[in-house]
């Protein structure tokens, strides 16, 4: 357990984003292997065996997702989700900017595996540099005959296009992403139908996260069993963690799944700033419920352990808050984010997120009432599971966990009209 450099093996090399550098360490040989030596079904099989789960947040088994694509003649699409909008998450960016060819190779192999000839990388608008890097890399690979028509002389056409989003968080949600990609408003679609049967332009589509797709070349190279040997019983392989907040060495680290939470915080990320005490952690991006310092003791960083602890691994975005943090303010800040980013389509999310902000703003400004806490907690009954897409639930993550775990702090704000931490 601990750090393991698979995805991040290349990123520190000089000129790591160049095709030449990438090829020196065996780049695109996995694509060659896939195109010339493997049938699409075999790749799907290996990915299933590897136990790889989606790294975009939901953790859905990747091989299984691919197997839902119907074996028909209609066009199919692969979409790489590079929207990376979840607060606290900045891991895909490292791959995009430092090892773009790894991502392209992963996309090409995956497209071949599901029978798609066209793939899109939907990248968040703010990643302007990343988009440039990717476009340059695609050009290089096309000029080298690796991508494009008749990729590597295999007779299989693979076209990859970069599409820049316009900065809405909800466009990271896969069906909103598809609408946005089609040039419509980024509003999530109702499911069913699922993208695997009716996705982009109503054709079968697979959407995967950057990190998920970047893992695929290694599975093709060394086999699903090898990948499955990393990590824990149910959480296989390695995962990128973006750790931010009050630690000494924030950044992106690649860990074998199952690494102890405390090892990440206290060793790998250098411990809490200025020797302060840990107060709370958001383990997997702002929508995952926060855990107190006590709650993370002995917890491992993998899907099941975090679920057992009452939260989620999510996108692996660890936000660390030390004892100087006002939880009320932190919750308020996150509520504002969701109220701003809700697409506004469905009533519970649209109205709930706005009301949360109104109430929290009052509490922060010393005008809270005790009844407010009941109303805030009741949001869970009205919004929880009742929204059109997962964003509504996401907005509940910090709110409900913050109030239940740090109720005293809220009560004190309400009773005294001030922040006990002087914030």
């Amino acid at each position, binding site marked *: 357990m601990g750090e393991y450099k698979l995805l991040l093996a290349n990123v520190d090399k000089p000129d790591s984003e160049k095709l030449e550098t990438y090829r020196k360490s065996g780049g695109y040989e996995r694509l060659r292997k896939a195109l010339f030596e493997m049938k699409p079904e075999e790749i799907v099989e290996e990915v299933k065996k590897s136990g790889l789960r989606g790294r975009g947040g939901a953790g859905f088994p990747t091989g299984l997702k691919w197997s839902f694509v119907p074996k028909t003649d209609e066009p199919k699409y692969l979409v790489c989700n590079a929207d990376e909008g979840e607060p606290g998450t900045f891991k895909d960016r490292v791959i995009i900017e430092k090892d773009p060819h790894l991502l392209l190779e992963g996309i090409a192999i995956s497209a071949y595996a599901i029978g798609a000839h066209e793939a899109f990388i939907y990248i968040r608008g703010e990643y302007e540099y990343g988009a440039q890097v990717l476009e340059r890399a695609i050009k290089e690979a096309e000029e080298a005959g690796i991508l494009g028509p008749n990729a590597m002389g295999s007779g299989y056409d693979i076209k990859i296009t970069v599409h820049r989003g316009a900065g*809405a968080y909800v466009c990271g949600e896969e069906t909103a992403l598809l609408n946005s990609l089609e040039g419509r*408003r980024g509003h999530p679609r*109702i499911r069913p139908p699922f993208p695997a049967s009716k996705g982009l332009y109503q054709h079968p589509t697979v959407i995967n996260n950057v990190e998920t797709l970047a893992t695929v070349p290694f599975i093709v190279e060394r086999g699903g069993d090898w990948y499955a040997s990393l990590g824990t019983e149910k959480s296989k392989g390695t995962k990128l963690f973006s750790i931010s907040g009050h630690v000494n060495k924030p950044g992106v680290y690649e860990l074998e799944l199952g690494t102890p939470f405390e090892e990440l915080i206290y060793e790998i990320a250098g411990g809490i700033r200025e020797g302060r005490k840990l107060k709370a952690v958001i383990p997997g991006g702002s929508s995952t419920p926060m855990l107190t310092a006590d709650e993370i003791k002995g917890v491992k960083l993998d899907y099941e352990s975090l679920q057992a602890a009452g939260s989620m691994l999510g996108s692996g975005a660890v936000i660390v808050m030390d004892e100087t943090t006002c939880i009320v303010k932190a919750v308020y800040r996150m509520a504002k984010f969701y*109220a*701003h*980013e*809700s*697409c*506004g*389509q*469905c*009533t*519970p999310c*649209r*109205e*709930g*997120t*706005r*009301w949360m902000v*109104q*109430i929290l703003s*009052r509490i922060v400004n010393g005008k809270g*009432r005790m*009844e407010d806490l009941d*109303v805030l907690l*009741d949001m869970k*009954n*009205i919004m929880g*599971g*009742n*929204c*059109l897409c997962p964003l509504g639930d996401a907005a509940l993550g910090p709110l409900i966990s913050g109030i239940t775990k740090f109720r005293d702090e809220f009560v004190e704000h309400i009773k005294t009209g001030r922040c006990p931490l002087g914030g």
Partner: protein
Amino acid sequence: MGMVKVTIDGITVEVPENATILQAAMKAGVDIPYFCYHPYLKPAGLCRMCLVEVEGMPKLAPACVTQVRDGMVVRTNTERVKKVREGIVEFQLLHHPLDCPICDQAGECYLQDITFRYGRATSRFVDEKELYPTKFYGPLIVHEQSRCILCKRCVRFCTEVLNGADWNVYWRAAHSLIGSYESDKVANYFTCNLVEVCPVGAITSRLYRYKTRIWKLEFTRSVCEHCEMGCSLDLGVRENQLFKIKHRMADPSPWICDKGYYAFDYVNHAERILYPLARQENKMVSVEVEDAVSSIADKLKNYGEGEVAFILSPSLCLEDAAAVSSMAKAVKGLVDYRVYGEDYLPVKGNVSDIEDVESAKAVLVVGGDVAVSHPVLALSILKAKNAGAKVGVLSAHDIFLGERVDVFSLLPAGSEEPLIKELLDGNVDAIPDLSDEERSCLKDMLSGELLLVAGVRASSALRAAIYSRSKEKGWKYLFLDRGCNAKGLYSAGAYSEGVGEILNRVKEGKVKALVVAGVDLFNTYPNGSLVKEALESAEFLVVMDLFFHDTAMYSDFFLPITSFAEDGGSVVDLFWRVRRRNPAMQPKGLSRPVRDWLALIGEAMGADVDSQGQVAETGWDPLQAKAELLEVKGNTVALVEHAFYRSARYASWCSRFSEVAESPCAYISEDDAKALGVSDGDKVLVSGKGGKFEFVAKVREGQPKGSIVIDAGFDRFPVTLLLNGSWVAPVELRKA
């Protein structure tokens, strides 16, 4: 389709396997509240008002989008569902202005009803409401943005039914607002449906704004009088005033157009003539009914065979038409209803209802703008398109359908008919301005199953060509007529040699007495000077109508008639169905239906007037037509057409409706515009046979060079003076 059994609150029903829980609940008689669901729009699952418990599903399911499964057990009466309903209603109301006392939707508002039934009694909201300003979008609609519950019904109507219109959601989250992107005026011919689909008082009609409360209105089912589609309408009347129209029964379509919805307030107009008038010296004075009747009867008695003629609006009801026909017979006079100068009569198509149109594989519209003449038909054609049909529009003028279909060419005004004929003869290349894709699509259409729709402009010669070609190829065909009851007037035998022939005979002094009912010939007949000459020459002129229009100026007697809201007649619609209009109000003043006036006059003359209309079994056989295809040559050829918002009956007396069309426009080509140094919005002068008129230029892409289309239907703007019997004429175009 397989059937499945579903149990809802203990009631088991059998429904098709693709039904939703909401549909199953409707069948079971279980009320599931909803906002965003609409029976004729795709389910969207937005408002979450319809959440229910489904056994075996951990989350609540939105009933409007969740498909049933066999054996599914649904509960709507649990505490969990109750709490969520309360929550959703509470959420909807948080920032809602709740200004019900001044809201036009009050009384028929989903939010009111659902709050009453499913909401909680008190609100927990103590924060400030965020309100948004009222937005007026031209004369037809107003949007109270704060009352909007963002159900997107209006937007979905625009995308799913209109295939796109400038109406969408802007901004996001709780600040999402519905509106237009660039139009200050929203008037897309079907605007009224936005009002009708809006479940709350967000989009309301400006015509009805602050007029009365809905529960004060008494509604009577009637039929629209503005075209042959015969849309079912519900007329809301209070104190013998017609205040509001609703479209509650989806017959023939779930949608209506702005004519049916907005063009009715003329019924209450202060200028309506409510007493008989007679000419005394040079003034019209009001006279007693008995005096008017006996004077007219005395006059008519004295004319011999062929000396009396009747010209009727094609929108008079069947009974009126029958009465006129029988009176014409009694006085051995002439009668005709083709006031637009048509040389054709109704042909019975081989399409039996609107579903036949909606399920067509390919539809080709020629010789007319269906969105103006038969608006809802255009929506049915779009529906066919959305179900996979290929659709083409080949017409000298088009405002709505063309830009939404697969093949579209604006044909030169003067040679529309010969070009279509050539196409029917198999020469696809005859049609100008088509892309390769359009051309091959058109070829495919002509070689397969096709529905040919002949617009109202298509002459008898073109109709004959369409008819014989369709018979030969096994195509379906649908022939459109002007007015709302041409088929009824034809059935009643109210036709002879055409209105032009009658006018000529009046002018020549052969016909001495003329009766004109329900129409201002200056507005409809495509030869204003002939109308003028004829009316001046007529020895005796009786006009029966609602308003003292230009034709009435020449009358010796004016008899006030009832409107469609009062008369209770029937009409024969596009598919030859007889449609009855129930009288929704008492006749105003001394107005009465045409048939009643004729009965009185007949009685005074000792003639029997029969108003029992029978519907004709067969239509006219266009192969009898011996006319030539219409072709007009000239450097500039103009097609004159009524602007949509001037094309309803009595449009000049419809306030909001006619306000939409502010000034008459001339559609001109980019080439002509360049040559004249004219840009969009500039003034141009069109001069021709009988006058010179000023228009606002609309430079239109695809408009052929040397061909223009100019608007008719404006007040004191007799563009029919430019015409010579058909709607196309050579003119001169200049910059003003």
